[in-house]
């Protein structure tokens, strides 16, 4: 903008220079609330976390430098180790389910269909996204109640005996995944729907003429065309699943045993229940590194596999 305005240099230079001076100041004022806020509530806390991770501190007594002890305890403390394994398992299962369901439903919404039905289905699959994860976990906990829950009642209709959903390790981990996916598949669904709708119709018609239909057309035509979206949707789903907290906190509180204890649940417990602020910071940093690694992987993969038009 300013480069064009400074073009007639001889005559217009004084006002243009004044203008860019005013513009710089205005930019600074406009940026101040956001940048100061971020400095205070994001950058300073990141530095704080980095420092705190090398201390033992319970807020009450003076902080004590412990070197890498907090990170070492991540490897040694069985609860922390299990929580990371749980989180990784959770991410793998939940993300595959979420993306699979989302992609399946989004492609089923393509093709001929009354438009009111398409709008209805789109709204339906989107709806859980506007609810709070805490509220959803509250009613789901009742639905998965072993004795009186509606899930076991429905299963009993087809002769399946009562499943101890919230009291057996495997079943409770399953419930956390199901409740999480129930609420979040709509987001990936919206991304896929947008990508699929943007594919030019002619490409499908051409593929039909060449005899590529169904699965063949999907894997050779559709999937390459929406591969950028698949990548973005996967990364967003992985990052958000790595931070799962509300569902395990409300549904099972990490139990039975440690079977549904996730990384963030351990951050919460070690900081605000055991007052191990240093250890909590160390776990948080490891989680951040995981998230950054996933993002970095996204960029590498997108160069290699993703097909851009």
């Amino acid at each position, binding site marked *: 903008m300013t480069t064009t305005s400074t073009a007639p240099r001889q005559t217009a230079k004084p006002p243009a220079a004044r203008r860019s001076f005013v513009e710089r100041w205005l930019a600074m004022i406009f940026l101040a609330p956001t940048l100061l806020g971020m400095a205070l509530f*994001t950058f300073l806390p990141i530095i704080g976390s980095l420092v705190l991770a090398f201390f033992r501190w319970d807020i009450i007594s003076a902080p004590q430098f412990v070197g890498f002890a907090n990170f070492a305890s991540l490897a040694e403390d069985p609860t922390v180790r299990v929580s990371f394994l749980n989180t990784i398992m959770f991410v793998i299962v939940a993300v595959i389910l979420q993306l699979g369901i989302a992609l399946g439903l989004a492609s089923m919404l393509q093709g001929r269909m009354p438009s009111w039905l398409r709008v209805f289905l789109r709204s339906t699959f*989107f709806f859980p996204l506007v609810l709070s994860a805490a509220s959803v976990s509250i009613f789901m906990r009742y639905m998965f109640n072993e004795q009186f829950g509606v899930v076991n009642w429905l299963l009993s209709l087809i002769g399946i005996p009562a499943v101890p959903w919230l009291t057996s390790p495997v079943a409770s981990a399953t419930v956390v995944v199901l409740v999480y996916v129930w609420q979040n598949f709509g987001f990936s669904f919206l991304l896929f729907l947008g990508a699929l709708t943007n594919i030019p119709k002619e490409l499908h018609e051409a593929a039909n003429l060449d005899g590529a239909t169904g699965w063949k057309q999907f894997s050779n035509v559709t999937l390459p065309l929406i591969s950028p979206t698949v990548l*973005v949707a996967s990364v967003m789903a992985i990052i958000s699943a790595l931070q799962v907290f509300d569902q395990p906190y409300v549904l099972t509180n990490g139990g039975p045993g440690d079977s549904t204890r996730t990384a963030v649940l351990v951050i919460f417990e070690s900081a605000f229940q055991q007052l191990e602020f240093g250890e909590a910071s160390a776990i948080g940093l490891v989680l951040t590194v995981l998230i950054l690694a996933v993002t970095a992987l996204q960029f590498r993969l997108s160069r290699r596999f993703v097909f851009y038009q």
Partner: protein
Amino acid sequence: MSSQTLHTGTDKDSGSTTGTPATHRRSRRRGRPAAGTVGRYTALAVAAALTLGPVLWTLSTSLRAPSESFNLPPSFLPINPDFTAYQEVFRQINVGLLVLNSALVTGLIALGQMASATLAGYAFARLDFRGKKAIFSLVLATMMVPVQVTIVPVFMLIRGMGLSDTLLALILPAIPTAFGTFLMRQYFLGLPNDFAEAAALDGAGPWRIFRSVYAPLAVPGMAIVGILAFNFHWNEFFRPLILTISEQNFTLPLGLVTLQGNLGTGSISVVLAGVILSMLPALVVFIFGQRTLREGLTAGASK
């Protein structure tokens, strides 16, 4: 899940019918579409039922008498609505205060984000200053930092500022928004440049150009930022759980989880009545702002 298996099932069927193009085209017109369509509609119906079922069950169970609410068979349709649970939930928890707290926190965060993101987004989109690219990357980078990493220092910072256990502890840290700034920058970049050039010819300075030309046009973008902030913070659980201590500062999700803890499985329709009440604002957003919300949610993925 079942929808998935059904889906891949139909795909395999259609794949196996592709022998030569000729036979394939014939089968497409006669046999296959019917089978494929049935499978497709069955899968969609199952998925829709699994999505809406739990919500319908919650609604109709909240409308059962508290003492009968956990009786089997369950109810999916409120045939004989009983509003006792709704009266009882007001007696058990201070619903008015929880709603007020949630509304204050959510509303002020939304307004704060709309204002700060509009200013910052405008600066990044239409003003010229040194280090613009670097500063913008820095702002975007904060999106990578999960709230759980900063929560311990933020908790201490809040204590240091003397804001422990106040609503401001929830509001202030949530106002700077990287995603909102990003959205507003995109929004302003999408507006034509001609307006600014015309105004500059008339002698308008950078402030006047913003104030009288671009700010009035920013409203649709601001609506996206506001509605996203509302949807996220109305439902937020992790930060209120940590940053509020006394019940008088609880927000709705926190109050409901506490209520569930207190009542257990005794009279679940009371808890579910609270859940349904807390969903009402989200429902309003869903009905009137769904399009805006959809645009906002998917905006980050497009570029």
